[in-house]
């Protein structure tokens, strides 16, 4: 965790809202702007940034939508193919070092490292409940903005 990140986390933990104007453009701000991806995938959860998983992870996810983390998220094949193409086009580099594709963003080393100073009380907060609930803290996460300055931890 770099110094800026630590500083922002400390402010957020103290309940201080960091002005959005301080945000550094381009930092932790991701492309999610595909209308089909938004329409189909952002009903049950936010449109997670494609860059947060490598292409082979997205391929594995998109080929098992009928059993998607305990729910049926099946799509008609042409729609699924369109979304898969968008996800793979904007996928991140494969740094998982794992032979099997990582299916959860929260299980990537990157995610664990980025959240290593978030205390248990935040994860367990009734306003958070699930690590899939990005917008509980990343207020503009649904717009692809995960900039450190846009973090507001639940009380």
């Amino acid at each position, binding site marked *: 965790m770099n110094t800026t990140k630590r500083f922002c986390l400390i402010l957020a933990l103290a309940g201080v809202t960091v002005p959005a104007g301080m945000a550094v453009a381009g930092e932790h701000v991701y492309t999610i702007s595909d209308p089909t991806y938004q329409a189909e995938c952002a009903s*049950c*959860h936010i449109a997670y940034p494609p860059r947060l998983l490598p292409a082979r992870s997205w391929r594995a996810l998109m080929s098992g939508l009928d059993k998607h*983390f305990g*729910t*049926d998220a099946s*799509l008609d094949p042409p729609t699924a193919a369109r979304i898969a193409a968008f996800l793979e086009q904007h996928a991140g580099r494969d740094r998982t070092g794992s032979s099997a594709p990582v299916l959860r963003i929260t299980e990537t080393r990157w995610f664990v490292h980025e959240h290593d100073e978030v205390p248990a009380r935040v994860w367990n907060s009734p306003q958070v409940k699930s690590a899939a609930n990005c917008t509980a803290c990343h207020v503009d996460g649904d717009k692809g903005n995960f900039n450190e300055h846009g973090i507001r931890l639940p009380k």
Partner: protein
Amino acid sequence: MRTFLLVRAVLAVLAVMPAVAARAETPADFLRSFETAARQEQAGFAGFSAARGADFFNSTHGREWSCASCHTRNPATTGRHAKTEKPIAPLAPAANAERFAQADKVEKWFRRNCNDVLGRTCTSAEKGDVLTYLMSLR
């Protein structure tokens, strides 16, 4: 050249229009098609019931979730996904005009959610009961 492009644009719009018009439906349209299907699926089908629909909606069916797990026991209000906590817009048509307006969406969500809640597809009678209940909410 410009006129030619304009004519082409108008023709393209006209070609798309009937498809768009055909896709926009009302909750009553869905109810009618569920009724037609229910009569074929079930001998002696005697009509839908809002009370039966409410009971179906609020009950679990041998699995973890009911419809109300995400849509709440008052589906005229905003729900919350049982796993991800994402807000879910109201399901009752009176509270949300986008519900039961597009056949492909209705088909998709009944397919997915019946599978999650019941582990099978819903019958047309079940869908009709639930929609009758949802349409009774104000």
